[in-house]
């Protein structure tokens, strides 16, 4: 990182090396106009003590050469000459010696911005490596089709993507891969689970609020759409978005602007929307629980992730990957899979998909005491069926089974209906209908 001093005069020449060193910058003094400066690595001072009249012209030339941060340093300045310097493109003007401390602060600030820009680029590069496509494991045809489809959408940074698939199939991983392999990678990837919050909190989270918009709004707060500016927003469990919010999201997608709760002005947003759901949205549209126009707006490019049971040939390679990963994390030797263990893994239905496989293998690495794993070494998670069978008499009809599942989910979620609905993969209104015994479709097991 360099402080480039374009010196129009000799004044204050002894100050620059010290100022640069204090800000952690290398100092380079030049008498000619610096060109082709890298704005990500340089900050410029136009040192014009005694040559104030030349400032507007040189400042204009400097600004024309690029987006580099630069300030003008003069020995004296009236308000007209100061205004002229700023109009010519300078970011700041300092009169030395009076403003020496302000100049120091500005330089420190500028150096911090250069460093944070560098950190941001390094972060984006490392996340891109983490989520690169050839790092997504699997050789199955169904996964290859998905990845091919995803790779086509990546360069088109404004295209909305809808990712569907059962819980644990890796929807968020694909969303991150789309973001970090695409042109928006240096901006944030913001994610939110639409099922996790009540409607009014989700609205404020997504769109922000103005001071006084509601009782607790003691200050204005930006929303996630604003914070994702330039990047991507990942709306997980979009099928659980309440209808009024669906309307607001639709407007945001159509107009590419949002309005904070309690606000009066529209704020332009430049964000790619990636939505995900394990709910059948077409069915939700038919049931009147999801807006058709929003569905079509989101469904520009649909990526349907296959469940793990449909990717049998991927199970063992994935298992070996996780065994090696967790062995490295815990600093233990990596156990091998016996043929029996591999068969047990392939034969399982994996209702929790890749997340369940990962959890099983982490436990195995931690708890196994043999170098070669047999089928008994693998501790599979109890399925929801196992848990249900331990509680009370078995239900008689399909309707009973559904109602019992809903009540158990509700208990497990501390009475939170949205969360229970999310876990069950049904909409909240349907959950309420089932609880009230009025869900005509419950018996069909839809």
């Amino acid at each position, binding site marked *: 990182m360099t402080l480039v001093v374009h010196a129009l005069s000799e004044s204050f020449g002894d100050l620059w090396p010290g100022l640069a060193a204090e800000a952690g910058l290398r100092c380079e003094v030049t008498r000619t106009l610096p060109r082709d400066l890298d704005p990500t690595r340089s900050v410029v001072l136009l040192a014009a003590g005694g040559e104030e009249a030349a400032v507007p012209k040189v400042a204009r030339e400097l600004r024309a050469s690029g987006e580099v941060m630069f300030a003008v340093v003069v020995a004296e300045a009236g308000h007209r000459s100061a205004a002229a310097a700023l109009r010519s493109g300078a970011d700041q003007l300092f009169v030395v010696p009076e403003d020496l401390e302000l100049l120091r602060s500005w330089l420190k600030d500028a150096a911090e911005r250069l460093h944070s820009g560098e950190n941001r680029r390094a972060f984006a590069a490392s996340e891109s490596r983490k989520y690169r496509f050839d790092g997504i494991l699997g050789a199955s045809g169904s996964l290859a089709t998905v990845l091919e489809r995803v790779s086509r959408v990546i360069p088109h940074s404004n295209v909305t993507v809808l990712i569907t698939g059962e819980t644990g199939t890796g929807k968020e991983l694909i969303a991150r891969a789309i973001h970090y392999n695409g042109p928006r990678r240096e901006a944030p990837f913001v994610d939110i689970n639409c099922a996790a*919050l009540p409607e009014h909190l989700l609205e404020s989270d997504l769109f922000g609020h103005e001071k006084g918009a509601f009782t607790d709004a003691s200050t204005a707060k930006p929303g996630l759409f604003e914070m994702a500016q330039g990047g991507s927003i990942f709306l997980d469990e979009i099928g659980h978005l309440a209808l009024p919010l669906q309307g607001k999201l639709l407007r945001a997608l159509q107009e590419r602007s949002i309005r904070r709760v309690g606000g009066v002005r529209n704020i332009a947003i430049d964000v790619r929307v990636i939505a995900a759901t394990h709910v059948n949205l077409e069915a939700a549209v038919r049931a009147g629980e999801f807006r058709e126009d929003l569905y079509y707006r989101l469904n520009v490019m649909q990526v349907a992730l296959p469940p793990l049971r449909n990717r049998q040939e991927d199970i063992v390679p994935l298992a070996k990957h996780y065994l090696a990963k967790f062995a490295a994390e815990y600093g233990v030797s990596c156990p091998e899979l016996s043929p029996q263990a591999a068969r047990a893994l392939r034969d399982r239905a994996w209702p929790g998909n890749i997340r369940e496989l990962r959890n099983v293998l982490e436990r195995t690495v*931690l708890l196994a005491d043999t170098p070669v794993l047999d089928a008994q070494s693998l501790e599979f998670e109890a399925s929801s069926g196992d848990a249900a069978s331990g509680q009370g008499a078995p239900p008689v009809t399909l309707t009973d089974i559904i109602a019992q599942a809903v009540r158990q989910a509700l208990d497990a979620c501390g009475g939170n209906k949205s969360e229970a609905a999310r876990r069950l993969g049904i909409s909240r209104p349907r959950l309420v209908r089932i609880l009230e015994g009025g869900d005509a479709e419950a018996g069909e097991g839809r």
Partner: protein
Amino acid sequence: MSAALAMHEVRARAQHFANAGAWADATALLLQHEARIREHPPCAALLAESYMRTGRAREAREWLAGVLPAIELSDDRASLRRATVLFGAAHFALGELERARRRFEEAMELARADGDDPLVARSMYNLGTIANITGDRTGALALYRLALSVLQRLGDRQGLAECYHNMAITYRDLGKWSEADELEQRSAEFARDAGQPRIVSIARLGRAKLALQRDDLDFAEATARFAAADFAALGDPVLEAAAKRLAGVACTRRGDYARARELLDFAVTRSLHHEATLTAAESLRSRAELALAEGNRVAARQDAEEALRLFDKLSAVEDLRALQRWISAL
């Protein structure tokens, strides 16, 4: 000009002390020039930070109350932002949460207006912590989510690791254990990327706590033991004791009393030796539970009463009351 340069020398020397972690020296030097640094925003903010770093939150608060109006009138926005967030931190350290919240909100607004992303993230993060403490868990999560987006923009992996860990604690408090576990894993991942093994181990400890709450005792014990070994290697005896306590609790619940005894004796001795009051109180309480499980009511009462004394010293009211109820049921 000579006065400005002299002040600059004071600032440079104090900053040098600060960079070296010699905050007491920085405080002493700045106090020698107290009258002059009142009019010098960068030094005024640095003295406030020196007070905070040396555990003198009350002095920091009084100092900032006196100098902030002058800093507000200066053109030095960087010092104003810094002083404002330090004011919030001083209130926070003194338990004045509402005042701290207001100052952090001011700091966030200043930082957003000036494009100071690191301070935006820090303010949001601090506001999230206050929300969590005051029981507004969803508010805390919203603020942490906002902080995450800024931390990503900054490429601050350590900040991301810490923020994910805090979110995990909030989810744990909400009883959402699988979400909390996912976030602890993400915290560990970013901590690993950032080369911060201590945060990796803290996340591991968090996962052990979650496993205990899920009653997944084998996983809890194994994870806590790994965390204990990590903390031992990192030279952090207090967190090593905390991790062994968790492993001991898992062993007690599983009925493996001999292993539990070994782990909990270690946790109690080590935490008392290092005057880690909270860890010592929790370890004594866990050992009391073990003693009761073994049928030794006398030892259980003895440890529980010692734990009670320590919780009282910490003003940990909820723990105190729960333990009183436990003792009375003995």
